[in-house]
């Protein structure tokens, strides 16, 4: 029987073997190597020994979790808080804009194809370019964001009607918001990320919308369901499998986000500040840039374990939506 299976499938197996080999070499092998590295005292002095550096057991994990002197803990909790907020806001914003955009271009109207193509524009820009571009756009005086909001739209005057207070200098000039320093920095990285990724969500939702039979809506209309009832009772539930994938993809890519922050703040030359730092740039700076590979591998392993937990929660929440039954 086994011989039969082998002789029957050996050709397909031969073709999938490179992919399997690639998976082992590029995913599993480095993962185990990373874990092993986290148990070693791997730093500048021992890097030549690589995987034969002195074994220190769980010392690197103890350093991260309990040593207040550890370099890796410089700003780690700030980065963790920012990463959680960043991920939540980006995933939420991406989904809202994605569904909105998909509903808009799902309808028939002249120039729909052009509109769909144009809406994909921000997605095709590499994330490091997005980081650099928005770094310029957020500048207080010369950035296009403040120029649009305050020099053109006079947002300060409009919002004053609603009781918002603005500061003016001694010459009576408005002091525009600073996006690249202080608490606003978090928004300075969230907004470009949503801008970059929402077309992806839109494409996914559009595919989901196309697969919903129109008869379902016709039946709902005959039953007297309003448009909002159709959206919440039909569209949204039927889009849950797509939603599940976007949530998962959003969580993973945003927790591991690096490019936008790194490029916006000087391609590694700068520091994003207390409110702009994320886990990945923090780990990169405090471990790998500091040649603390063992500790860096340990914190990466810890993060991976947390993410396994997050993915397990996600699966529990969306399991039914992903099954075929």
């Amino acid at each position, binding site marked *: 029987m086994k011989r039969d299976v082998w002789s029957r499938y050996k050709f397909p197996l031969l073709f999938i073997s490179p992919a399997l080999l690639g998976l082992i070499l590029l995913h599993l092998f480095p993962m185990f190597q990373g874990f092993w590295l986290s148990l070693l005292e791997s730093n500048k002095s021992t890097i*030549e020994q690589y995987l034969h550096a002195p074994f220190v057991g769980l010392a690197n994990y103890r350093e991260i979790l309990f040593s207040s002197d550890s370099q890796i803990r410089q700003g780690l909790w700030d980065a963790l808080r920012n990463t959680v907020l960043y991920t939540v806001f980006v995933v939420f914003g991406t989904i809202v804009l994605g569904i909105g955009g998909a509903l808009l271009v799902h309808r028939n109207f002249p120039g729909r194809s052009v509109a769909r193509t144009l809406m994909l524009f921000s997605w095709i820009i590499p994330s490091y370019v997005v980081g650099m571009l928005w770094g310029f756009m957020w500048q207080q005086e010369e950035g296009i964001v403040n120029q649009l909001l305050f020099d053109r739209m006079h947002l300060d005057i409009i919002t004053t009607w609603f009781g918002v207070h603005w500061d003016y200098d001694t010459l009576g000039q408005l002091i525009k918001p600073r996006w690249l320093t202080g608490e606003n920095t978090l928004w300075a990285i969230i907004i470009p990320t949503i801008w970059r990724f929402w077309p992806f969500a839109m494409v996914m939702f559009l595919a989901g919308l196309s697969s919903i039979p129109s008869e379902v809506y016709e039946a709902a209309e005959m039953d007297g369901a309003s448009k909002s009832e159709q959206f919440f009772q039909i569209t949204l539930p039927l889009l849950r499998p797509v939603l599940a994938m976007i949530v998962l993809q959003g969580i993973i890519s945003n927790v591991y986000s690096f490019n936008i922050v790194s490029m916006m703040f000087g391609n590694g030359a700068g520091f994003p500040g207390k409110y702009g730092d994320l886990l990945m740039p923090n780990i990169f700076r405090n471990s790998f840039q500091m040649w603390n590979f063992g500790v860096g591998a340990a914190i990466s392993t810890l993060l991976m374990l947390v993410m396994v937990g997050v993915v397990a929660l996600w699966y529990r929440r969306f399991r039914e939506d992903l099954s075929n039954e």
Partner: protein
Amino acid sequence: MSERQHLQFHGFRKVMLRVVLVGLAFLLLSCRQDAPTGQTRITIWVLPNFPDPQRDMEKLVKTFTLEHPGIEVEITVLDWGSAWTKITTAATAQNGPDLIQLGSTWTAAVTEMGALVPLDSLLLRMGGENAFVEAGMESARPRASDSVTSLPWFLDVRPMYYRKDVLAKMGISPDSIQNWDDFVRALTAIREAKPVVEGNLVLPIGYPGKNDWNVIHNMAPWIWGAGGDFLDSTATHSAIAEPASIRGILFYLNLVRQGFNERRNLEKNTAQVSSDFDEGRLAFWLDATTKTIYLDRPQFLGGTGKSAAARNYACMLPPTSPDGHARYFVGGSNLAIFKFSKHRPEAMLLLEYLVGRPDIQQQMSRASGFLPALRETYDMPYFRENHDRQVFQRMVQQGRAYPSVHYWGEIETSILSRRLGNIFDLITAAKPGEWPEDKVIQEIRATDTEITRYIAQQLDHSPGLRERLQSWHRRHP
């Protein structure tokens, strides 16, 4: 499946299998491209030193390949952002080029990894340490090393660019700006007069605040000028919170407080503030000597052409502190040979050609704007007969480099850039009229603690390092 179909299928499988095997064979063969028979190919990794990094570097080694027909030089230009990772990976994996360009602050770290060939005999043949500028040799022989492991290729100093027309309009002679007090007087005059030249309001000075490697290089001369330093003379403790260092930092920051440099510049990078100077909006600007290449070039070659700044700029020495201290930052790059190189004699020849020949050093300087490390080059008319290049030469002679210890790179890129970034954040976040001096000093003290703690960890991790550094200190009191 009929027998005929079965045979056809088997035939198809055989053909496919052959196609795959032949493809793999081609792939494997194409991975290695040998030099023509009888020729030795040496590889060199360089950084983007020139306006056209690949072609200008090829021009630089052209004479070498003509003089050594048996040697072929393969040039790879690395990007600054990824170069450090690629170089250290090559050093640890023992697989990479024969010859390597190292930023002057990288040499000690790569030396500590035991990856570089000692070059003492080559240095001796080239006339010893005196053949090169002193500040360049600091990084060539790292403090913890007994040997010279790289040779200085070119130097990088930061002169003060100024607008001759603006100073003339203010009635200020450039020669009158000698020390910090003179400098503040000149800046005050410009701030008060608000000169408008060719439609542009000219502001006194500009410098960037964060998101830039240059932030620390820009601050160094003011700290050193005040008599302070980043590390103590043994390079085992931070000195950044010493009163003199704090005085230097505060003087530099006060240029913002007094309204000479606008706060909004602090969220810009060097390229952006530099373009403000190019476009005629700044009277003073500190930058690398490479800027002269762009200012002197026509627009169609990527320069600034005939802009107001290009027509009216000149360079001067940055002012000294009131008590006459003048130590300028000297950076640059060195060339080294990896121990795993299979073509050491040929790599040595190329190294000697690039660093040891005044004609080639001058050619490099003309093309890149960087300065020669070889002293003899400064005797050439190109340097002797030009005012700005005379200024550069004086800076090189009076300049100093960061301590050549293997942990400096992390202190600079990770601790100082973050902490100084915090300082600039404190300033930009302060309300107009407020100046967060106490918080700035607090941040400097935190930087001091972090650096000293980091060095202590490094000394603990590297047995014998403390003794080697003390030994260096005894030899260089």
